[in-house]
C-alpha cells in the first residue's frame, strides 16, 4: 500500500482539501428537528395539530376519570389478592425473602454490567439512563405503597427493598472490578440457582411446609407460569430448531410434526386438552395438578413458536461460519455451541422476545380453565358484591401491570441486543 501524500511535501500535486464542520442543517437541533418532524408543510402541520388535540383530549379524559371519578378502593382492599392470591399468611415471609433476594441480585448484576463494559467500549458507571431508572424506582417506592394504602410496616419494607437494590447497584458498580474474577463469573450462574431456590420457597420442600399450587394466585401465579414457560421453552425451541435442520430424517420429521401440531391449534384448545390428557403423556408425577399441567402446555406451546424463531436465526448465519469453525478442528457440538448458536440466537432474540411477551399475555387464558392468575383474580374480585360495577378500575390496573411487565421484557431485550451486537459502534 502506498500512502496518499498530503501536506506541503507533496510537491507537484496540489494539497487535498481539509474537512469542514457540517453546516447547520445537518446538525440536529431541538427546534429545527421539531419543525421538520411536525410542521414541514401545511398539511403536515394540520395533521399534527389535529392529532395532538385528539391525544390530549383522550389523555385529559382518562386523567379526569382516574383522579376524580374512579374509586380505587377496590384495588386498595385487594392488593394482596392481586399480588399473591390466597397464599397462606403465615408463610408469606418466604415471598418477602424471595423479593429481597431478587432485588439484591438485580442490583449486583446491574452494577457489574456497568463495571465490566464490553471489550471495545469505554464504560460509564452511571450513564444517564441508569440515573433515570434509579429516580423512577425511588418515585415508585415512595408513591406506590402509599397510593395502595398499604400499612406503614409494609410501606417501610418496600422502601428498604428499593434501597437495597440501589445500594447493591452502587456497590457493584464501583467495586465490581476489585472483586476476584471467579466470584464475578458466579453471578450469571446465580440467577438459575435463585430461580430454583425461589421455586422451593414458593412451593415448599427442603424442610419448608408445602404450599399447594392451588393457593398461588394473582401476579405471583402469572409471573411464575410465564417465567417457567419462558425458561423451559428456550431449550426446547433450540433443540427442535436444530432437529428441524438435522440430516437425520426421523429427528427432522418429528420436529416438524411437533411444530405443526402445536401451531395448528389455538392455545385455549391445547390448555383444555392438556387438562384432560397431559396426565397420560408425561411420566408419572410430572403433571400432578391443574397448575402444573397448564404450565407444561404453555411451555410446549411457546417452544414450538420459539423453534421457528431460532430456525430463522440459524438460517441467517452464513454457512461459512460453520465451515470456518469445522476447519479449525471444532467438533459439530462445539461449533454449534461456540460459533453458530450465539449468532443465531442473537438474530432470533427480537422474535423470541415478541413470543415471550405474547406468552405473558396468553397466561390470562389460564383464567378460562379456572386458575386464579391475574385475570382470574380480577374476575373473582369483580364478582364480589362489595365491588360491583368497578370493572374499569380493575381492568385498567391489570392493563398497567401487564404493560409494565411487557415493557420491562422489551427494554431488557433491546439492551441485551445492543450489548450483543458486534457491529454497534461505540458511542
Amino acid at each position, binding site marked *: *500500500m502506498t500512502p496518499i501524500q498530503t501536506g506541503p511535501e507533496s510537491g507537484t500535486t496540489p494539497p487535498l482539501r481539509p474537512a469542514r464542520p457540517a453546516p447547520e442543517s445537518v446538525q440536529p437541533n431541538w427546534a429545527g428537528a421539531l419543525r421538520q418532524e411536525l410542521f414541514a408543510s401545511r398539511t403536515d402541520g394540520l395533521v399534527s395539530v389535529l392529532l395532538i388535540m385528539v391525544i390530549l383530549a383522550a389523555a385529559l379524559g382518562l386523567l379526569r376519570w382516574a383522579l376524580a371519578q374512579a374509586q380505587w378502593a377496590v384495588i386498595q382492599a385487594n392488593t394482596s389478592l392481586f399480588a399473591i392470591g390466597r397464599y397462606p399468611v403465615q408463610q408469606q415471609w418466604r415471598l418477602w425473602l424471595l423479593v429481597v433476594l431478587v432485588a439484591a441480585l438485580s442490583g449486583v448484576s446491574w452494577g457489574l454490567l456497568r463495571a465490566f463494559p464490553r*471489550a*471495545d467500549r469505554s464504560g460509564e458507571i452511571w450513564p444517564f439512563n441508569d440515573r433515570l431508572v434509579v429516580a423512577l424506582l425511588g418515585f415508585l417506592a415512595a408513591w406506590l405503597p402509599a397510593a395502595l394504602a398499604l400499612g406503614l410496616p409494609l410501606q417501610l419494607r418496600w422502601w428498604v427493598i428499593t434501597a437495597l437494590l440501589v445500594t447493591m447497584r452502587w456497590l457493584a458498580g464501583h467495586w465490581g472490578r476489585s472483586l476476584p474474577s471467579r466470584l464475578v463469573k458466579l453471578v450469571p450462574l446465580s440467577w438459575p440457582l435463585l430461580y430454583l431456590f425461589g421455586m422451593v420457597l414458593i412451593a415448599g420442600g427442603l424442610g419448608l411446609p408445602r404450599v399447594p399450587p392451588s393457593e398461588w394466585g394473582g401476579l405471583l401465579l402469572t409471573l411464575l407460569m410465564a417465567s417457567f414457560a419462558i425458561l423451559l421453552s428456550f431449550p426446547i425451541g433450540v433443540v427442535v430448531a436444530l432437529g428441524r435442520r438435522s440430516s437425520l430424517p426421523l429427528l427432522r420429521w418429528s420436529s416438524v410434526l411437533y411444530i405443526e401440531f402445536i401451531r395448528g391449534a389455538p392455545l385455549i384448545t391445547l390448555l383444555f386438552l392438556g387438562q384432560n390428557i397431559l396426565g397420560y403423556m408425561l411420566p408419572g408425577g410430572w403433571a400432578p395438578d391443574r397448575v402444573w399441567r397448564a404450565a407444561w402446555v404453555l411451555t410446549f406451546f411457546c417452544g414450538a413458536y420459539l423453534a421457528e424463531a431460532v430456525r430463522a436465526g440459524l438460517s441467517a448465519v*452464513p454457512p*461459512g*461460519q460453520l*465451515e*470456518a*469453525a*469445522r*476447519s*479449525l*478442528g*471444532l*467438533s459439530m457440538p*462445539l461449533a454449534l455451541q*461456540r*460459533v453458530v448458536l*450465539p*449468532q443465531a440466537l*442473537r438474530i432470533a432474540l427480537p422474535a423470541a422476545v415478541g413470543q415471550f411477551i405474547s406468552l405473558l399475555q396468553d397466561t390470562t387464558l389460564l383464567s378460562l380453565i379456572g386458575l386464579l392468575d391475574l385475570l382470574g383474580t380480577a374476575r373473582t374480585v369483580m364478582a364480589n358484591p362489595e365491588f360491583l360495577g368497578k370493572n374499569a378500575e380493575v381492568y385498567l390496573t391489570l392493563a398497567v401491570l401487564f404493560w409494565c411487565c411487557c415493557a420491562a421484557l422489551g427494554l431488557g431485550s433491546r439492551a441485551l441486543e445492543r450489548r*450483543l451486537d*458486534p*457491529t454497534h*459502534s461505540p458511542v
Partner: protein
Amino acid sequence: MPSTQPMIEARGVQKWYPNGFHALRGVDLSVSKGEVVVIMGPSGSGKSTFIRTFNALEEFQEGSISVDGIALSNDLRNIDAIRCDTGMVFQQFNLFPHLTVLENLSLAPVVVRKRRRSEVETQAMALLERVGIAEQASKYPGQLSGGQQQRVAIARSLCMEPRILLFDEPTSALDPEMVGEVLEVMRGLAAEGMTMVVVTHEMGFAREVAHRVVLMSEGQIVEEAAPETFFTNPQHERSRQFLAQIL
C-alpha cells in the same frame, strides 16, 4: 527448499455433487513439506472443491487423500485430527463476528487443544503483531477493513499451529488496495517454509512465491509446472487460453 516428504497425497480423486455434476474427475496431486503450490483455473474448474477435500469440508466418492500421513476416511476422529493440523483461509474471511479479534484467535486452541487461555492469548498477540494488527486485538471483525480481516483470518489459522495452510482465493473478495498487505503476510509464511496450497489468480504471487503452478480445468489437472515454465512456455492449449484471458 521443499523436502521430498509428502504432506498431501491425492490419488484419483472423483467427486460428484448431489445434482449429478462431475466436479472432480480423477485428480492426482502430491505436495511436499515446505512446498508452495498455486492452483489456478477458470471458475467452475473444481479448484476450490479440490482443496476443500483436503480438510474434508467436501466429501469425495472415489480415490484417496492422505494428509500428513493420515488417510482421510469417514472416521470422524481422523477428520478432526486432520483439521487441527490443516489451517484454511477463506475467500469471505469467515471470521466469527460475535467474538473479538483476540477471541477469534484463541477460541480453537482453547476449546479444541485444551490449552491454557493465558498462554494462548500471549501466542495470539504475537501472531497479531506479526500480521501487523496487534492494536486491533480487542475490536470486533466488523470494525476492521477487509485486508485486516483476512490477516486476522490467517493469524487465526496459525494459532492452531498447523502443518499445512490452505488458501481458497484469499484475495478475491478484497478491494485492490488491500490485496498487497495480505499477499505480504503469505509471502512471509512461504519464506518460513510453511506448506501451502493456494487457489488464487494473483499472477505476481504465483510467479514469485510458488514452487509449482497447477492449472485445473473441468475437474482435472491440465498442466503442472514450475512457475517460470508455466507462465512463459505453457505446454497445453488450455493453459495458453487461460493465461491469455487473465493477462
